């Protein structure tokens, strides 16, 4: 590939004079220098990709079949890690069910919330750009430790939620310490982090031509009819994109549980990524943790593939319509 520019110089074989050969050589040298500059410019990315992504991934694939505690050399154990995961480790299965529950509840709720707000923000009012910025702001900080800490305060025993409930005469509840409630505080946090899907929905909504709505109104379609027959179908590619992205991030949720609940109480918020981290960096079972990571990768890939498979039934692309 690197020699391609040089060989395409026209008439190279026909002209054999010394002067021309020199000329050719200098052109080749220049082309090479150009390529060199190109590679030099993308070198940071190349180093990053090979050194910090591909290499660790390959290493973790190898480690997934070993018993490795960091301090001693890895010991090959074949499929034992995977076997243990699915047959002996009850906490692993717990983490799988917690994560699936979270994804199944939090992702649709977040999307619904994001869509509702996007529609509100799509109306024409004075100062709308201020509102848009204000509603997007939380998502800039939402994944952060600071927000998780704040959430702990809000739902803590002496937090805002209990203070409000106390005004209504309700006894304080240990939201974060109760096995039935703890996961819901994290789901609430996830729903509140609606900023980026909202932004994408908003962009999608603005693509829908106003004439379509006008025509439908004239034909007597009410607000619900317009929503279900126009907005949702025309927005479905955007919804699909959001769904895929949010499902993937949903599977990888970590920070929130790590800080707000620590995986407790009774492992009811022990998300997959959190359990993986615990195995790797607290129990130093790197082999087992690597195996878990690869199972997660396969599961997310499978889930995404399934979403793509179903998309044919409910996602409408304009190009297809016009066919």
């Amino acid at each position, binding site marked *: 590939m690197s020699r391609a520019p040089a060989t395409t110089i026209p008439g190279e074989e026909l002209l054999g004079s010394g002067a021309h050969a020199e000329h050719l050589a200098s052109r080749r040298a220049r082309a090479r220098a150009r390529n060199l500059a190109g590679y030099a410019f993308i070198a940071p990315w190349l*180093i990053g990709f090979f050194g910090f992504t591909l290499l660790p991934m390959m290493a973790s694939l190898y480690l997934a079949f070993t018993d490795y505690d960091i301090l001693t050399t890895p010991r090959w154990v074949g499929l034992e890690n995977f076997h243990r995961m699915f047959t002996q480790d009850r906490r692993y299965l717990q983490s799988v069910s917690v994560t699936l529950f979270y994804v199944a509840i939090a992702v649709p709720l977040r999307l619904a919330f994001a869509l509702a707000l996007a529609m509100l923000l799509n109306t024409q009012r004075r100062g709308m750009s201020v509102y848009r910025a204000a509603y997007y702001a939380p998502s800039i900080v939402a994944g952060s430790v600071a927000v998780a800490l704040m959430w702990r305060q809000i739902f803590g025993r002496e937090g805002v939620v209990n203070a409000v409930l106390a005004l209504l005469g309700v006894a304080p509840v240990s939201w974060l310490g109760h096995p039935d409630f703890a996961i819901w505080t994290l789901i609430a946090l996830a729903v509140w982090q609606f900023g980026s899907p909202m932004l994408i929905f908003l962009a999608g909504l603005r693509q829908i031509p106003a004439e379509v709505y006008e025509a439908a109104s004239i034909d007597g379609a009410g607000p619900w009819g317009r929503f279900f027959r126009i907005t949702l179908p025309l927005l479905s590619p955007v919804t699909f994109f959001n769904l895929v992205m949010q499902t993937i991030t949903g599977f990888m949720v970590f920070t929130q549980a790590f800080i707000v609940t620590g995986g407790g*109480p009774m492992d009811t918020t022990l998300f997959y990524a959190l359990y993986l981290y615990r195995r790797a960096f607290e129990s130093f079972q790197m082999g087992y943790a690597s195996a878990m990571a690869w199972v997660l990768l396969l599961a997310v890939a499978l889930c995404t593939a399934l979403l793509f498979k179903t998309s044919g039934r409910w996602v409408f692309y304009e190009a297809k319509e016009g066919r």
Partner: protein
Amino acid sequence: MRGPVGRIVATIILTVGLCLAGADHTPALAQSSGAPVELRVAWWGSQDRHNRTIKAIELFQKKYPNIKVTYEFAGWGDYWTKMTTQAAGRNLPDVMQQDYAYIGEWTSRGLIAPLDDYVKSGTIDVRDVPEALLKGGVVNGKLVAVNLGANSQCWLLDIDAFKKAGVELPAPNWTWADFEKTALALHGKLGGWGMGSGIWENQIWGALYLSAGQWRYTADGSKIGYESDKPLVDHFNMLLRLQKAGAMTPRADELASFNMDTSVELAPVVSRKAAMAYFWSNQVVAVWKAAGGDERNFVLHPLPRVAGGKSANFIKPSQFFSVTTQAKQPKEAAMFIDFITNSIEANEVLLAERGVPISSKVQKALLPLLGRSQAEMFAYLDRVSKDVQPIPPPDPPGHVDIVKNVYNPQVVDPVAYGKLEPDKAAALLRQEANAILAKAKR
């Protein structure tokens, strides 16, 4: 690989390699006393400990101007992640803080150097240290770690709350039945919680069997060391009774408010919501301070015993300093340990924050400087040491795994939330712990 790509890749590899090589081969500085030497020290702890330790390091540098100390510190959890990663990269500091639960495992992996030669040559002077206080740092007959402070578990009792409730302070040899009565009486009179945080701690599991003359693991650490689950089952049942009666902080509140991190400031005994709490004696200094300092009246009390049992207490090295086998300056590292052990000046700054200093000379020198909480800690160690058990063997490899992956999530929590019968929980603990220990032993 020819052509520009090959050349670039080669250049990158060479450049990166050169950088790494440069980092690896930092010239080892000469060992002679006059030449400048760099010493790396690492520890875990609270902000208070960091400040004190850094000040002590400055004193060390003043005494040995040729030694420049660089240091790193972290909280408990991050510290072990960091040290393990450094060990894998063969980049451990010269001096590292160690713990009784880890020292056996780290020594067996060849990461910790023996110190006997330095003791023999007098580099580490232990003439003022009682033999018993060094014993915790001996692994396989060799001294590998020097104790930074003596420590014991305790019940922290709020004297004012006891007075207000008209409940007598318990006897030093109290039993768990006495404890239950006391907690119920306090709750009956005061309305709040008799017992606050800490009672579900895995250390209590150990204390139950220690008091019964056994230990939770066998001496070789290959399996659970007791025949009968009954003491543990009885204990869980009592906790459930107290929890139901409202005489003890419910597990849900403990998890939600103050057990997730190590901030003692949130313990119920600090905010007068509970009259008793379980702690390690060196933690009490911080608890007392958070509770309001001298306006509060606390006393440290030994752990309850099983009926007819022996003392449930033992004197534990709170933590150690060890020299690693990857140390570049082992001699200076030993000098540093000696300085921390024997320098009165340094200990005036450290002020027993890591527990009661092991040198009797240092102890005596500190006495007039102590605040109330530290004085009570010194006095408690003196009281309790008259009737203690010998220190149990270091926890075997796999213990940390058992606590984090079995004891807390699969035993204590389900029992406390009423989702698992105590006898089934104890049986599960035995089964899972044996499996982990067998695997760790392999």
